[in-house]
């Protein structure tokens, strides 16, 4: 379907930025996890997930994002989200993602913060 999530990424030193585009369900979550794990395997110490082109993340997708976050935490890394709609932000807070990951309004803020953590 046209709503399926596309994931792209870019590496900036120790920081990997992942952009999503579309609906994050189980398939979208798996696409994000695949790219995130590949970046961690290639030595990234921080991930920034920019969701500005996503308007719906269902609870299955969030459960996969939590798995990604746990893996980042296990590696002593840091994960930050940015570009969240108010509804996605609210849902992340309901499910506790905001307790363990950082949330920033803009990609610039998120990258600046995680770069500080990895320095």
């Amino acid at each position, binding site marked *: *379907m046209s*709503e*399926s999530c596309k994931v792209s990424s870019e590496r900036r030193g120790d920081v990997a930025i992942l952009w999503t585009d579309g*609906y994050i*369900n189980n398939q979208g979550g798996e696409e994000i996890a695949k790219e995130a794990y590949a970046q961690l395997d290639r030595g990234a110490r921080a991930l920034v997930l920019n969701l500005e082109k996503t*308007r*719906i*993340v*269902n*609870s*299955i997708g*969030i*459960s996969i994002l*939590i*798995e990604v976050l*746990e893996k980042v935490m296990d590696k002593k890394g840091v994960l930050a989200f940015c570009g969240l*709609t*108010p*509804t996605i932000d*609210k*849902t992340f807070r*309901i*499910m*506790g*993602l905001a*307790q*363990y990951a950082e949330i920033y309004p803009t990609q610039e803020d998120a990258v600046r913060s995680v770069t500080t953590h990895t320095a």
Partner: protein
Amino acid sequence: MSQGGSAPPGREVSMTIPVAPEMEIVATAQAAALGEYLAMTRDKIDEVKLALVEACINAFEHADCRDEQLHLTFRLGQEPKGREWLEVEVLDKGKGFDSQAVEKPSPEKTFHNHRKRGWGLQIIKSLMDEVEITSGKTGTRILMRKYK
């Protein structure tokens, strides 16, 4: 719903979706169209859409629907005092469940635990203004309302 106000005749849309991957997105298009008709904010429409997604995927995963379909009804209405609302009913002809027996999820139970699911009803209740769940051996009905 408890707050009163019913849908005038003709302000109701019904649709049936098959139990199939991503069909919940088809349903959200209808919710968005009706939310826009009411001139709801985009954020409120997003909340209705996500609540609807969660209701649909709950049924897809757990209801074991006899007819392999979900029956959706969207209603527009107005309270006596004037507040307009969008109501969404999700009906499945599945095996039902005891909503009182569903364990309430928490971030503490979710993180570093194998069981990360079970948030659907919590999300629905958090995003919608009113939610009624009735369930029995013949199926489950989730009725949820969002005020403009």
